């Protein structure tokens, strides 16, 4: 991955910054430059809360290049409380904590290291919220 690409994704990866349409209030993650709902190009940065629930989850035993060291890992669709659904790994989690409907929140973790001299990508993962 190029340094410029990972730099461009910093605010979304680290702070979960998406977009909100000034015209129809639709919220997007990842960010959009044009509203797919109403066609407006007046979109403003919008920081999502990072709280959501697990919609679906799988345990991955064979990973694409760059993710091998994390196998086995949990990969989930997380529905954020603002609406968007996000693809993310779960972390700091036990098998028994992983179920559909479980409340999770965002943490920042190392996602990927590109070889020995490439950038290390930090970004969002999700972890179960403490009960009570």
């Amino acid at each position, binding site marked *: *991955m190029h340094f410029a690409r990972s730099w461009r994704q910093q605010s979304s990866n680290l702070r979960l910054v998406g977009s909100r349409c000034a015209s129809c209030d639709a919220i997007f993650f990842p960010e959009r430059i044009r509203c797919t709902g109403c066609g407006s190009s007046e979109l403003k940065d919008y920081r999502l809360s990072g709280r959501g629930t697990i919609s679906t989850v*799988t345990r991955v035993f064979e*990973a694409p290049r760059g993710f091998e060291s994390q196998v086995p890992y949990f990969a989930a669709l997380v529905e954020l409380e603002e609406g968007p659904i996000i693809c993310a*790994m779960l972390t700091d989690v036990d098998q028994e904590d992983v179920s559909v409907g479980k409340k999770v929140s965002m943490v920042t973790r190392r996602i990927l290291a590109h070889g020995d001299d490439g950038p290390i990508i930090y970004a969002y993962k999700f972890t179960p919220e403490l009960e009570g």
Partner: protein
Amino acid sequence: MVDRIEIVGIGRTCAKERWTRGLVDLAVEAAGAALDDGGGVSPSAVIVSNALGGALGDQQNLGTFTASHIGLGKVETHSVSSDEASGGAALRLASALVGAGMHEAVLVVGAEKTSDALPDELESVRANGLDATREAGFGFGPAVASGLGMQRYVAQHGIDRSLFYHLASTAHLHGARNPFAFLPWELSFDQYIHSPVLADPLTVCDLAPNCDGGAAVLIRKGSERSSSSVNILGSASVSAPTGISEPIISLSLGAAAHCATLALRDAGLSIGDLSFLDLHDSSSFIAALSIEAVGLAKPGEALLLAKDGHFRFDGPAPLWTFGGLKARGNAPGADGLYQVVEATLQLRGDAGKSQIDGADRAFVQCLGSFGATAVAHVLG
């Protein structure tokens, strides 16, 4: 379809790993076979589809290189890339060139060379057919996406995951009769249920194997003279919003469903008029949703119908008659054209041990980017 488009020549390579053949070689081998089969029809344009070559460091601008290597000079060339829908997309564009009167005959070629790449490299490049930044960039590839889908399918429909066996076993039953198949053997329940898990509950046996392949179709403006000819009766292509979450959450493929409706309407036919079909089966999950999208099964019933033999060669709706992606093999950029070549063999009555009795109407559909791209053709 305004004008009849006739399929006058077909060619395909054996879908095994071909150590001595490169990407351009596979395209040329298939293209040459289609020209040899084409009764002297000479194309004035060549369109070549490929999904992964550029990203794997292989030849780019395949249209021009393929035309050059088969000795076609001064022809119009294009290269098409739409993930695993590339082959269907190329044929649809070729049909448009013929239909618009810009060319009398066009050669459409699909090729993919997967066996040069290391498995993890190949998986990474294939993952970029999904959202490269937000899915592939976070460890979500085709296997993970289908694993998530199977989780939800099983939970929502309240069925046992082992029922997915019947999709794979149908494909393998048919693939075992196809000498060009990558995995030409029948799949036992024991093999299926004990195969390694990749993304729970998806196993190796739920995923179509990557293979090397080339497939080619020579088309021309249809002449009314021959009643034995095979024609494109209708076609359509539809896209949907990208992202793996929509198909997984809704357990449906909107683009595939709409595309099927449009293609059948274009042909003036309904699903019941078809003698056999070929649908996208890059994974058990995508296969199930494909079946339900075109209306062969109600939501959640694809696996039960498969269990009852509904999609076998001797059933009411034969599917994947040469093994589908699951047994014939998945050569992403060529998938859509393998479907058309195999359907043409059926319609000509030249399908050998794979022949469906009385085959006269076929429907084929290929999908890219987890169903966000759909291309369908009706042949007869």
